[in-house]
């Protein structure tokens, strides 16, 4: 059995699955229930000067019959008095001494930061997470993402915290920034022990087209919110990769963004995260989803021969490079498995209208399309639209002997540089003549 326990910048946890600071960690009751269910850690709903919330607070992006593919909220930090939260932190730690309880914090002045750090540590928090990410409401008051977007301010506040903190400090980063590594580096420079990312993305999830207002609606009005859920995972993975690969960041990372099963968690770990935080999936399905995540992760590790999370951490990073380092001589083309094809012809129309006119329809009475090999550029769009598992596969056509990248070609002076350069990649590629292909007369329009 692999060991899935983690030591995250000094914070110990029986497994890498933490609850993100959010409504599921609003109270001691919820966190104890989550720990009973199997969660390894929890980042408490952000503490600070309590706020007042509005109703409603959430909006959802449904994709066809899938609900909450994307999710946004306009809820702020905790609306409960600090003393209640601190008392409950203490209680949780009493019952769960080996689980990770992290206090998320967001205040304004240096004095407030000092005070709240001490309070949280006295209550027994195993670590602190500085909320520099909240993209709505709090930022209008100079907190949350207003801090996260200014690396200098961020650095300063982290250093205030480090003046008094004895427990590890995690800096939670906002994605609402041009380059997230600027903020990550500032977190390190300020003395932060770890980073977590991503917080939610500024968003409007939809518009009520009958009443002319965006969601969520508060008495006929709305505001932008923070986007999360499965839809944001690709954005989170990219930002995670950027931080994990940057030599100046070099901090443990807690990955956040759309994680809802073991596979999502594995992907985050392979890109450099050592713990993962979950919110939307729990808001959707409850704490019980953990019973799918832990055995899934263990099974994967067993099958791959990983003994610890550390062994697998960042495994995919070395294969992610800049575009200029990709092999331009690697050639693949699509192949359709006739026996599997169900004849929906989606590949045909996708290639015809959206790609390179490299798929033909047979006139032999079957609905199985065929690949026009000389037109296929190997983009693999067809294999993505195909509804049948492994019906369209991409077959390698080059001999694998040559490996020349854009960088190599640039160095060799072998790249197109003028507008009509003979070296243009698509120069001799087939493109239908529009007038002939569409049977238009050539008098033009009137």
């Amino acid at each position, binding site marked *: 059995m692999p060991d899935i326990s983690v030591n995250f910048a000094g914070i110990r946890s029986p497994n890498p699955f933490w609850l993100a600071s959010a409504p599921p960690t609003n109270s001691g009751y919820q966190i104890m229930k989550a720990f009973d269910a199997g969660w390894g850690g929890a980042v408490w709903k952000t503490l600070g000067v309590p706020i007042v919330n509005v109703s409603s607070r959430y909006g959802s992006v449904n994709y066809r*019959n899938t609900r909450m593919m994307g999710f946004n909220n306009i809820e702020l930090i905790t609306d409960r008095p600090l003393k209640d939260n601190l008392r409950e932190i203490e209680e949780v730690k009493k019952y769960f001494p080996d689980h990770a309880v992290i206090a998320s914090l967001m205040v304004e002045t240096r004095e407030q930061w000092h005070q709240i750090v001490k309070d949280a540590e006295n209550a027994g928090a195993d670590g602190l997470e500085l909320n520099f990410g909240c993209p709505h409401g709090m930022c209008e008051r100079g907190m949350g993402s207003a801090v996260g977007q200014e690396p200098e301010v961020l650095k300063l506040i982290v250093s205030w915290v480090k003046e008094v903190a004895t427990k590890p400090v995690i800096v939670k980063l906002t994605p609402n920034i041009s380059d997230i590594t600027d903020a990550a580096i500032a977190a390190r420079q300020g003395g932060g022990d770890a980073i977590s990312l991503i917080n939610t993305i500024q968003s409007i999830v939809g518009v009520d087209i009958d009443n002319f207002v965006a969601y969520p609606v508060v008495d006929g009005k709305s505001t932008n919110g923070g986007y999360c859920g499965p839809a944001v995972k690709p954005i989170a993975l990219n930002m995670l990769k950027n931080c994990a690969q940057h030599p100046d960041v070099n901090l443990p990372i807690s990955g956040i963004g759309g994680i809802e099963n073991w596979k999502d968690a594995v992907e985050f770990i392979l890109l450099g995260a050592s713990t993962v935080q979950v919110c939307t999936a729990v808001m959707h399905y409850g704490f019980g989803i953990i019973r799918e995540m832990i055995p899934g992760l263990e099974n994967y590790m067993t099958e791959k021969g990983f003994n610890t999370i550390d062994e697998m951490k960042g495994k995919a990073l070395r294969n992610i490079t800049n575009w200029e380092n990709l092999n331009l001589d690697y050639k693949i083309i699509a192949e359709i498995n006739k026996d599997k094809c*169900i*004849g*929906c*012809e*989606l590949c045909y*129309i996708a290639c015809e209208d959206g790609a390179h006119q490299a798929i033909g*329809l047979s006139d032999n009475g079957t609905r199985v399309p065929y690949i026009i090999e000389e037109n296929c550029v190997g983009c693999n769009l067809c294999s993505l639209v195909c*509804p049948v598992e492994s019906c369209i596969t991409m077959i390698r056509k080059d001999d694998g002997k040559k490996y020349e990248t854009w960088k190599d070609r640039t160095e060799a002076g072998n790249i197109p540089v003028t507008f009509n350069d003979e070296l243009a990649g698509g120069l001799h590629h087939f493109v239908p003549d529009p007038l002939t292909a569409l049977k238009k007369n050539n008098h033009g329009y009137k």
Partner: protein
Amino acid sequence: MSDYTKPTNESEFEKNFEQIKPLMNSTQAYYESSRCLFCYDAPCVNACPTRIDIPLFIRQINSGNLTGSAKTIYESNYFGYACGKVCPTDVLCEGACVYNLQEVKPIEIGRLQSFATSTAISESKKLFIPGKSNGKKVAIIGAGPAGISCACELRMMGYDAVIFEAREKPSGLTVYGVAPYKITNKEALDEMDYLQGQFGFEIHFESGIYKKEDFIRLEKEFDAVFIGTGLGKTNSLNISGMNLENCFGAVEFIAELKIHQHNVKVGNKVIVLGGGNTAMDAASESARMGAEKVILAYRRSNEEKGAYEFEYDLAKSAGVKGMFNVSPVEITGKDKVEGVKFIRTRTENGKVINIIGTEFTEPCDMVIVATGQSKQEELLSNVSGIKFDLKGRLVVDPENYQTPNPKYFSAGDIISGGQEVVNAAADAKKAARGIDRYLKNKS
């Protein structure tokens, strides 16, 4: 053994004849429409005789444009709601769904179609505006799927359409023939009301056109005449005992059942003679009416029967027993039916051969003869120039649906020999276009 008890009131009748394709609710429709792949040149469309743009109307359901969805359907098929419920979708649109090839349940196209049109009907949504009057008038004989569809299409092109119907209600066999578990009379008639509201054609009920004078009058008063009478009564069998009490023709029995429902008396032991879809329906319906035993007797083998396999399965699931390779020799009994005398048969080179010495009598107290509907040769002997083919089908040209008598056009069961509602709807639309071409060329 039948699982049904005799229905004694309307609600018991409805329970025994529970809808096999009940109307979807909006959640079901949303989920089901989400599954559609939006195939290119979709095979379901090619499998629908009316060529409804199925992926489009399903996408419109999914995107919340129900009005647009209903319009897409009605633009191709004026019996959009009824067809969704009564079409043999297994062998049409749903049978062609690509999901079948993946052994995934095909999209429930029929039910989605009825769902989309049901709102337009219940809210009387104005989807169509008849064309500007062109002053021309077309007479339509029969308010069945063919006649009504032809009338709607003609109205769209600006013609006056006047329908003469022999019975009291419109929709033809949709009300008087199709099994009650496929569509209720109310559903069928609501759609007819909706269509009349949209298109404003005129219907005269209990106004059958039978005599030569009637036809002459129509020829005089109208610019063209459309024949949509469907087929006639059940063919009689050439055996003795056909006139005994409790021996019925299938279409007559079914029409009776459709109108009088639980008040119709069905025997305890019923023998249905025939192997087509109507025989299956009659057998199924007898079982659901609480007959203790229903035997479906066909003179050829099970494999040779004309009915769709799913119709036979449905009959069997209602408790019907199949008896194959038996040919009726005589219906026995004094005044009332007491049994059917059969002889066993085998088929050789497509011919049925009686096996001598194998006669036996199966007792029963009711016989339903489902041996096909008669053709309309006699009725149309009143019209000059009309022709029937060897199978008794009225001859029309395949493009304009015009008969050799240029004033007369036709579509539906009378030209096909008996198909489905959807075929009548498809062909009658084309016939209306044919009438338009003919009258435009004439003037």
